[in-house]
C-alpha cells in the first residue's frame, strides 16, 4: 500500500436482478472476523421484501436462461470461472477473514467445481435422458429440464465453496436462483455476485441476499413462486420449519447435508444438477 493513501472500502450490498441494491429495509449488520476482533464490513441485511424482489427477478430471468442452448449456458458458466480466477486473491482474503484453514485451497476448489458443473450444462440431459420402449407405436422420450426458481441456503462455512457447490449445479440445470448467503461470513458471496454481474450471466439468474437466515428462510420457503428449496447448507435447526413452510406449494426440498464434506470432490455429482430438475416425458405416435 502506498504510504499515506487511505484505501477505498467496499460496500457489501445485495445482488438482485443484476443490480447491487442496499436492503429496502435500510438495515445492515456488521460482519466480524473469525477472531471477533475486527469488523470486516457492514453488510446489507436483506428483508422479506428484498427476497420478494429477488424471487421476482429470478422468475423473470429463468425462462430466458433455460431457453438458451445448453452449450451457451455451459460457456457462460465457464466464463464465470474465468472471472473468478481473476478475483481469486480477493476471495481468498474474504474466506480467510472467515477463518478458513486453507483460503487459497477453498477458492481453488470452488473455481474447479464451478468449471466441473459448467461442463454438465450440456451433458446432464444425456446421462439422465431416456428413450423409453413403450408397448405401442409411439416415440417416448424423457429428459430433465430446469424446475424453475430455486432457493438455495448457503452453509455458514465454507462461505464461498458452500454456496458455489449448490449454486453451480442449479444454474447448470437452467434454474434461476435466490441464494441466502452465509449469515456470519457473507463477504465472499457478495463478491461472487460481482463476479456474476461481470460475467455473461443474465441479470436475475442469480440473486444473492445477505442477512439473518432465520428471518429470511421462512419467507423463501413459503414463497409460492419458488419451485425448489435446497437446504443442503441450512442449519439443522431451521430445517423442519422451512420444510413445513415449503409444503403448501409442494416444493421440492433438498434436506440439510448429513455430514460436512464440502471440500470433498467425491461429493460432486450430476445428481446435484438433477436435484433441481424435472423429468419431462413426451409421447408422440409414429405412423404414416
Amino acid at each position, binding site marked *: 500500500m502506498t504510504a499515506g493513501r487511505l484505501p477505498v472500502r467496499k460496500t457489501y450490498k445485495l445482488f438482485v436482478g443484476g443490480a447491487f441494491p442496499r436492503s429496502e429495509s435500510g438495515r445492515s449488520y456488521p460482519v466480524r472476523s473469525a477472531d471477533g476482533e475486527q469488523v470486516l464490513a457492514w453488510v446489507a441485511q436483506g428483508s422479506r421484501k428484498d427476497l420478494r424482489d429477488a424471487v421476482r427477478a429470478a422468475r423473470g430471468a429463468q425462462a430466458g436462461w433455460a431457453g438458451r442452448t445448453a452449450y451457451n449456458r455451459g460457456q457462460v458458466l465457464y466464463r464465470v470461472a474465468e472471472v473468478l480466477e481473476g478475483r481469486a486473491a480477493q476471495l481468498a482474503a474474504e474466506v480467510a477473514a472467515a477463518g478458513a484453514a486453507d483460503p487459497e485451497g477453498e477458492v481453488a476448489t470452488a473455481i474447479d467445481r464451478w468449471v466441473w458443473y459448467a461442463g454438465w450444462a450440456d451433458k446432464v440431459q444425456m446421462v439422465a435422458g431416456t428413450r423409453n420402449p413403450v408397448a405401442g407405436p409411439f416415440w417416448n422420450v424423457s429428459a430433465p429440464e430446469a424446475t424453475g426458481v430455486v432457493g438455495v441456503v448457503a452453509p455458514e462455512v465454507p462461505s464461498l465453496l458452500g454456496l458455489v457447490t449448490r449454486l453451480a449445479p442449479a444454474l447448470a440445470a437452467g434454474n434461476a436462483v435466490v441464494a441466502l448467503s452465509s449469515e456470519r461470513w457473507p463477504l465472499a458471496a457478495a463478491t461472487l455476485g460481482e463476479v456474476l454481474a461481470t460475467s455473461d450471466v443474465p441479470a436475475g439468474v442469480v440473486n444473492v441476499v445477505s442477512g439473518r437466515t432465520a428471518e429470511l428462510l421462512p419467507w423463501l420457503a413459503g414463497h409460492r413462486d419458488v419451485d425448489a428449496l435446497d437446504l443442503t447448507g441450512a442449519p439443522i435447526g431451521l430445517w423442519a420449519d422451512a420444510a413445513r413452510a415449503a409444503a403448501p406449494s409442494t416444493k421440492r426440498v433438498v434436506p440439510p447435508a448429513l455430514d460436512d464434506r464440502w471440500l470433498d470432490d467425491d461429493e460432486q455429482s450430476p445428481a446435484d444438477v438433477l436435484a433441481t430438475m424435472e423429468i419431462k416425458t413426451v409421447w408422440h*405416435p409414429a*405412423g*404414416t
Partner: protein
Amino acid sequence: MLAEIEHPDPGPTRLAVGGPVAADGPRSVDGRVLRVPAVDAVGLEERAAALGGRSVKREAKLGALSLLIRCIDLTTLEGADTPGRVQGMCAKARRPEPADRTVPPVAAVCVYPSLVPVAREALVGSGVKVASVAGAFPSGQSELSVRLADISSAVAAGADEIDIVLNRGAFLAGDHRRAFDEVVLAREACGPAHLKVILETGELGTYDQVRKASTLAMAAGADFIKTSTGKVPSAATLPMALCMAEAIRDFADQTGRQVGLKAAGGVRTAKQGWQYLVVIQEVLGPAWLTPDLFRVGASGLLNDVLLQLRFQASGHYARPDDVSTD
C-alpha cells in the same frame, strides 16, 4: 386441420387438393373448398380398433346380420366367369337361404361388363341390382376414351351401378386435376346408373392420401366411394373404412350430399361385416345404414353370415356344407 381458404378461380373442376402446404382443398360443385384434414395413423387405427371391439350380441346381432345381407354386392370377378356361374350366383342373391323366407335378398350382384346381360335377366323382378365393374377394371390403365366407352356399354347392357377405379397413376403422380376430371367424365358416362369410385386404398400408401382421394372422388360426383378392387393384396381394412367414413361425413356436412361407402376385398366373416356396420353407425350415423349408402363387396361373406344365422336359429354350430357355395 386445414384452414378453408377461398380460391380465386372457383370452377368446379379447378382443383388443388390440400396438403399441409397447399392450404386449399378440392371444391364442391358450388365452388366451396372442401376440408381435407390430415390423418394421424396411430390415432385412426386406435379408434378403428375400439369400434371393432364393440360387442354385438343377440337381437343386435340378428339385426346386423340381416342388414349385412341386404348390403352385400355379391361379387364374381374372375376371368373364368361364365353365364352359368353368374346365373347360379344370381339365384343365391335372390334367395340366399331358400329354406328361410325371412332371410332377405342381397343388394346387388357385381360382375364384369360382358356378364351384365346374364345377370340382368337372372335378376328380373327381384329388386336385386346389377352392378358392373368398368373402366379397365382393376388397373384403369387404358386410354380414357376406352374406359368411358366401357362404362357406357355396361350401362347400356343394363347395369344399375358402375364400379370404376380412380386413376391412381395420375393421383399418385400429383395430377389430381386429371384424376378428378376423369371421375367427372365417368359420372357423365354413367347416366342414370350409380357410380362407385374405387380408391384402391392399398395402393395409396397413407391415410392422408386416402382421405384426399375420398374427397376428390366425392367432389367429382361419385355416388359411392369404395375401398378396393379385391385384386391387390391389401384390401379393405377397418381403419381405411373409418378414414373414408370420416371424409364422407365431412363432405355431407359441407355440401349436404350423402355419399355411400363400399367396403370390398377381404371382408370374409360376419364379424368383420358387422364391424363395418359399427363404424358406419357410430361415425356416419344410422341414416347411412341402408343399402343406398352402404355396401360390402364380397363373395364368401354371405355364406358366413348364413352360417351365423343358422347357429342363431338352431343353437348349434353349422358345417360349411350346410349352405350352397354358389
